[in-house]
């Protein structure tokens, strides 16, 4: 298996749209990450709507390893972050990956995996440039919980 990854040097962001006239309750965002040799620092995934921050969650390399109950340092994973039932609706959103206390190096870094086409975007007949491939993530919605 081969993965196309974009190393985190400053920040990465991915825009996506929810197109149905439905109200959603977001439980988790799973960004598809590759951790190379457990870099130091704290990483944060933040969800925005119209550039307004809705929620954010932070984690470290140790958290990724702990989530898989491993001491290994080279991990690719849809890393789940609990967004605590954040209500969403039809609209355009942005997920941003940032860091603090982290510096990229070839020997230790975090990267966000890219995929050919996002399941959250409209399909396009145009073949995108590799550099325009979307970052990979999954949204976990709770379809059973009512909004209060």
């Amino acid at each position, binding site marked *: *298996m*081969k*993965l*196309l*990854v*974009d*190393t985190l*040097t400053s920040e990465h962001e991915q825009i996506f749209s929810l197109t149905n006239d439905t109200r959603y309750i977001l439980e988790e965002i799973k960004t598809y990450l*590759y951790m*190379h*040799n457990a870099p130091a620092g704290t990483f944060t995934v933040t969800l925005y709507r119209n550039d307004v921050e809705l929620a954010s969650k932070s984690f470290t390399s140790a958290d990724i390893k702990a989530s*898989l109950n*491993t001491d*290994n*340092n*080279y*991990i*690719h994973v849809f890393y789940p972050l609990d967004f605590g039932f954040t209500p969403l609706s039809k609209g355009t959103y942005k997920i941003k990956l940032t860091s603090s206390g982290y510096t990229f190096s*070839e020997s230790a870094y975090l*990267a966000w995996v*890219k995929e050919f086409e996002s399941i959250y975007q409209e399909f396009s007949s145009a073949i995108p440039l*590799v*550099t325009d491939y979307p970052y990979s993530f999954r949204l976990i919605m709770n379809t059973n919980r009512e909004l209060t």
Partner: protein
Amino acid sequence: MTLKVLNFPDGFTSATAPVELGGAIIVYDVESIIVSGSVSSSLTIGFQQRPVIGDGGAVTTANDVFGSVGGWLNGTQITLIGTDDTNTVTIPFSNTAYGCLVNGNATLENGYTLTLQWNETIERWFEISRNF
């Protein structure tokens, strides 16, 4: 944006790093080269773009322009870019191990490019193109 293509072979365990393939082009910062010095290179990046400048004046690199350690991915392609009309960097022709089989010495002035490709079996860097 710095893209990497990582290969996770069958049986991969997360205890060791995956192999980085050569699909991505990595652009490096300008490197100052001393007389008879070497240009840095990565053993794991297949396509590298490396701007260079002579250290304090015009310089000629060593015959083994990227050193003599070896171990590059077979077929690695490195494009050298000159960045100064005075502090030029000359890549010498050298038909010796780790040398460059260039079509005559290549003196890189500002904006001049030279693309070399590594052949592991022959242990030479071959000139693919130059723009001057």
